[in-house]
Every structure is written in C-alpha cells, then in structure tokens.
C-alpha cells in the first residue's frame, strides 16, 4: 500500500510483556480480565495520593496520629486503604531529632495501598546498595540535607512489615485545611528522600 508508514518496532519490554500475557492466558493460568483488573488497580486505585491523605489526616488530628503510630494498618484502613502489601504496616514519624527513610535491599517491597507501585529508582541496585551505606550522601543527591545532629534511620524491609514515613508538617502547612495539606505531601516524602 503506497504511503503506508510502518510504526517503530515495539520496545523489548513491551514485546516481552505481550508474550508473557499471551502465554498466561492461552495456557489457562490467568484470565484476561484478571490482568486488566491488576492494571486498573495500579493505574487508578492506588498511588501516593492515598498515603498523602493519611499524612494530612495525621497532621490535623492528634488522636488519629496516635492511632496511626500505635497500629498503622487499622488506622490506614479508616481512610479506606488496605489489602495486598499493606496488611502489616508500620508508620515511622520524622521528628527534629530523627529522619526515617525506607528501602528494600533484597528486592522491592513497598506499601502498595498507600503509595502504589515503587518508582524505578527505588528498585534500582544503586539506591538499594547506597542508602543503607551512605544515607546522607544519597539524601543530599535528592536535595535533602540532614543536619549532623539528626539521626538517620534507614529501615530495610527485610520481612513482612511494610513501612511508610510520616514527614514533619512544613511551615507552609499552617492554617491550611486537611484537603489542602494533601497537596503538600509527596511520594518521596513518604519514602523519606524528601522533607515532606
């Protein structure tokens, strides 16, 4: 057909995913609808906006914050977030004396219901190797300078607990509503590589 232009070939990863999907469905291991459901879940249902709502509530409501720090999973479920990879949560409170940051050095464990899927750098060997060994240098590369007298605690998710950081409320949070506070909370703040 004259004038027909071929598209660029698909990337290796796209082709690999298609091949995997075809094998899983043709062999009757996974229903096609199940794959669509997972894609929809991660694209539309979970993500750092959920965690930001938890943080904003904790900033506004001292009783909620106390429940969240004492037993995180039920407190997070109060806002409607629970399920796979959020079954056994612990929330780590940043204070003027302690800065917390999370990692999974063995793989890529991450609290899906509140943060969604991890960013690529979180899964990368350099982040996983360096954050435990030289956390201050890594945090500085993210633009976060931690004072010498502040303790840096790196939490390596080596078992079944999934962690999330509760950042300190920034100065600009004063006088804002809970809904406005949600916009001040970033994914990186809840991983611990940003201030909030």
């Amino acid at each position, binding site marked *: 057909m004259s004038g027909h232009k071929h598209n660029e070939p698909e990337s290796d990863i796209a082709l690999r995913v298609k091949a995997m999907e075809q094998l899983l469905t043709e062999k009757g291991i996974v229903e096609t609808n199940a794959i669509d459901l997972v894609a929809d879940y991660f694209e539309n249902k979970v993500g750092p906006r959920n965690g930001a709502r938890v943080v904003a509530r904790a900033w506004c409501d001292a009783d909620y914050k106390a429940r969240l720090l004492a037993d995180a999973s039920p407190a997070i479920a109060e806002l409607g977030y629970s399920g796979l990879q959020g079954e*056994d949560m612990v929330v780590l409170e940043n204070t003027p004396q302690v800065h917390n940051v999370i990692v999974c050095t063995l793989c890529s464990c991450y609290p899906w219901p509140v943060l969604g899927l991890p960013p690529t750098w979180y899964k990368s060997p350099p982040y996983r190797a360096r954050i435990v060994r030289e956390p201050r240098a890594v945090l500085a590369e993210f633009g976060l300078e931690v004072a010498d007298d502040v303790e840096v605690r790196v939490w390596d998710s*080596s078992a079944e607990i999934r962690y999330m950081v509760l950042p300190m409320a920034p100065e600009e949070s004063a006088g804002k509503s809970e809904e406005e506070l949600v916009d001040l909370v970033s994914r990186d703040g809840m991983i611990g590589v940003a201030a909030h």
Partner: protein
Amino acid sequence: MGELTAERLAQIIEAGHSHRREGDGSEPRFDEGQTVRTINHHPSGHTRLPRYAMGRTGTVVRNQGIFAFAHTNARGEGECPQYCYAVRFKGSELWGNAAHEQDAVILDLWESYLETP
C-alpha cells in the same frame, strides 16, 4: 490449580495475604532493648538476612509479632512461624569508620537469624 480469575484476584488484592500467624504460645526469645547478634551463614538460595548484616550486633527495638518464616517457606520447607523483630544496627557496626555516628539501619529479622552474643 485452576485459572486465576478476576474475581479471585480482586479478593486477594482487597483482603491481602498476611503472613502473620498465631503462635503456639511460646514466649519470644528476645526482649525490646536486648542486644542480639545475627548468625553468620551464607546460604545459597533464598534468605531474608542480607549479607551486609550477617554476624553483626544490634539492639531489638520492636517485637513485630509472629510471621511465617520466608527463609524456609520459599524453599518449600514449611512456614516455621516465629517471632520477627526490628533490630537496630549502628552504622559503624555495619560499615566501620565510614559511617556517620548518627546513622542506623533497622532490619526486620526472624528469631532463627538471631542469637545472644
């Protein structure tokens, strides 16, 4: 094993799949605040004791409860449920003089990985 349906998967995502287990009534071997040392073994295959933390001394900061032991479970050797503890290691214990004196790494470690120094 039957086909994984969307309905079943939705249930798993919603309900989760916790590895927390009921205990057999036995007491935890370690208390919060206690000094512990990780075992120094280098198994081939699945482990949840990272190499950088083998044979190191730390402090129990939290008893996380009883969980199926991923080390044996992943090898098809059974769940062997046991207490799991958050253990705090000073940076200098793991990385020597290179570490900042205010750095610490906390790992969740099952009882089988820990001994009394």
